[in-house]
């Protein structure tokens, strides 16, 4: 489907309306879910939908503007969608005691280590490549 085949008015609606754009995001997700189910890919539908949207953007079949408002809103409010999952703790009262404290400590230490290692690795590689770039520029 090329962009030109969509009537102008529909294009305009898509460009302006946040709710319509959220509907479009939902459609991509549904397509991803259907693809995952039919092909048996071990990937969540959202990821497949995201790849589909990216491919369409890159191929020029879909303009970013027709998704941007909806996407920005979804990304800004994403934390809300995580809230209900935390209440699974209600089913695991055993985690409220000493065991919970141990796990809490484990997560803090491990996550801090992961963040430091990741950031430093990227940053050190970044400085290397920057130095190479500038020295080759001088040479």
């Amino acid at each position: 489907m090329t962009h030109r085949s969509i009537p102008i008015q529909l294009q305009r609606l898509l460009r302006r309306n946040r709710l319509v754009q959220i509907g479009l995001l939902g459609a991509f997700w549904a397509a991803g879910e259907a693809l995952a189910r039919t092909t048996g890919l071990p990937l969540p539908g959202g990821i497949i939908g995201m790849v589909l949207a990216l491919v369409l953007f890159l191929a020029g079949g879909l303009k970013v503007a027709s998704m941007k408002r909806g996407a920005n809103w979804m990304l800004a409010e994403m934390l809300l969608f995580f809230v209900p999952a935390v209440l699974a703790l209600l089913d695991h009262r055993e985690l409220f005691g000493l065991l919970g404290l141990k796990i809490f400590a484990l997560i803090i230490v491990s996550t801090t280590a992961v963040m430091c290692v990741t950031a430093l690795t990227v940053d050190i590689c970044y400085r290397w490549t920057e130095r190479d770039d500038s020295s080759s520029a001088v040479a």
Partner: protein
Amino acid sequence: MTAAALWREPLAQAAVWSLATILLYLLAKRLHRRWPRWWLMPLAVAPALLMIAALALNVSYRDYIRGTHWLVALLGPATVAFAVPIYEQRALIRRRWPLLLAGMVAGSLTAVATSWALAYVLGIDGELRLSLLPRSISTPFAMEISGEIGGSPDLTAVFVVLTGIIGAAVGDIVLARLPLRSTLAKGALFGVGAHGAGTARAHQIGREEGAIAGLVMVLVGLMNVALAPLIVQFMR
């Protein structure tokens, strides 16, 4: 119909819990904007208040999630939304992908190694330890892996969200202490360390950071799904 009978209606319960979740989230967001302390994060305050309400009303997790599952389901379309910032940052990503890959591999190895070692030191073993291993990956991937390596997907989901909450808070502290030059490193730190919740936090810091965090989160998930069987070989 009396109020008590109405309360037993599943539809009424769904409406009440959905509304309560959304309102408490909005309230928590306001609180955090007014007093930006890490322990006032919406993702910590809103669930805590809901948990107190559920305990007070003697509502089980099953009753609660039956009415609010649609909110969790919105994580699917929200994942699709990452296509926009990733597309907009495509030039940066094309130029810098080797750096991101290096960070992802180093971060993933650190995640698995520290989780396993700390669990061993603290005397956490069995299914619980295995459920803790895939913690640094975003929920859908993590649950997949957890089941595969013998953990409990349900518990892993809780640990993933906890990692996100803690990670978003720890990320700010790490960011302030490390002398990082590139936005690349700042985005990757949140994407590898604290997946969805961290990525949401990275988006608040900057568009570029958010885009990189989103991309890295997705790629780390894919990478770990591919590597999980290999890692398990070593852990057994």
